[in-house]
């Protein structure tokens, strides 16, 4: 809870699934620290443990061993209801699947976390209008989730995750169902909130999304094999003399 504590600190985090037969290690001893305001992209082949890792960081999957500290507080020892409170107060989550409340409008889905977080109805509404506007969904506010396309639902889920201005945004393939244009809206919003200091840990295959991050963590077989900043490219600045594309000469 101290001001300078990292937002996320995982120590020797392990997850072993056992469904019937042999135990299957999904995450094998991950150490990860994310400071306030950092944007970390988690990459790696499918089955490398990326989703399991962020699910554990959000308390949606229990760890087998190791420690999770969020905002300076030990979290892996919390009960399920303890996690629920922590998530409501500090964590925004975007999944590959959307989990919108089916019998509530888009607007209510987005406002709910902010209202639960204790902000006034007016603030919740303004935040919702801002987020849906940024994601090109202003005119869908009164729709129900079932009336939306997959891509629209995914963007609503992102708006909901950001409604509460959470200490930590966790996202698992947040652009998985989006076409180019919708991906661009999501990227722009992620860039904006990151610019405003939002801490983000995001699993993605999409290099456009990953390239927004300050830092990339690569997983392979449940272990971190690379963790470091995305460098400045050594190429001369683009825009004056682009050499991005080599057309046949």
């Amino acid at each position, binding site marked *: 809870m101290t001001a300078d504590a990292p937002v996320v600190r995982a120590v020797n985090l392990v997850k072993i699934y056992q469904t019937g037969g042999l135990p299957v290690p999904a995450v094998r001893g991950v150490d990860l620290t994310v400071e306030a305001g950092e944007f970390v992209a988690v990459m790696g082949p499918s089955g490398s443990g990326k989703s399991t890792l962020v699910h554990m960081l959000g308390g949606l999957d229990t760890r087998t061993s190791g420690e999770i500290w969020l905002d300076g507080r030990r979290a892996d020892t919390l009960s399920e209801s303890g996690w629920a409170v922590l998530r409501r107060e500090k964590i925004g989550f975007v999944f590959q699947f959307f989990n919108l409340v089916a019998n509530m409008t888009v607007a209510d889905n987005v406002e709910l976390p902010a209202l639960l977080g204790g902000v006034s109805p007016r603030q919740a509404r303004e935040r919702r209008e801002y987020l849906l506007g940024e994601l090109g969904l202003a005119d869908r506010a009164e729709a129900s989730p079932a009336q939306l396309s997959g891509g629209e639902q995914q963007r609503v889920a992102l708006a909901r995750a950001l409604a509460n201005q959470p200490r930590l945004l966790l996202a698992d393939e947040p652009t998985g169902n989006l076409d180019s244009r919708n991906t661009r809206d999501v990227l722009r919003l992620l860039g904006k909130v990151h610019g405003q200091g939002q801490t983000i840990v995001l699993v993605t295959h999409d290099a*456009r999304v990953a*390239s927004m991050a300050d830092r990339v963590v690569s997983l392979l077989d449940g272990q971190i094999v*690379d963790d470091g900043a*995305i460098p400045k*490219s050594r190429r001369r600045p*683009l825009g004056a003399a*682009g050499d991005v594309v*080599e*057309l046949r000469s």
Partner: protein
Amino acid sequence: MRQSLLALLAKEPAHGYELKQALETIFGDAYPSPNIGQIYVTLGRLEKDGYVRSVDVEQANRPNKKVYYITATGREALETWVEEPTEGPRVRDEFFMKLVLAPMTGLSDRMALVNRQRRHYLALMRDLRELAERTDPANRVALLLIEGAMLHLQADLDWLERCQEDLP
């Protein structure tokens, strides 16, 4: 370059500098800005091959300028080029050479090579994204060119991942 100049001249006669400007306007910042010297060299070759001809146009208070126009032979060559299928891209990846050969020499290990390359690709992707943001949204051609480069880069990253999984 030959074909793009021929195509521009099939639209209307032009001098070298106008051709350079036309290429820049159409393709935007993602296109490697053509060197004016290279354009004149190419025009010279096209003229020698009989695909274009030039006339000197007098200008008041300035040296004459050379205006190029396409010939019937040039138009035929252009038609052939447009109608034949275009070769797909070939994988000719310098990094893959490094990845396969460098560990054999003991110079580097594959994990380090792949990790460094991944970060480099992401840096390139960031450049492309920023270039797309700066590009006029009305310029569909330039944006599609950038999107094409992004899709190729994504494929390179996916391939890198496969290499990391499958090469010991």
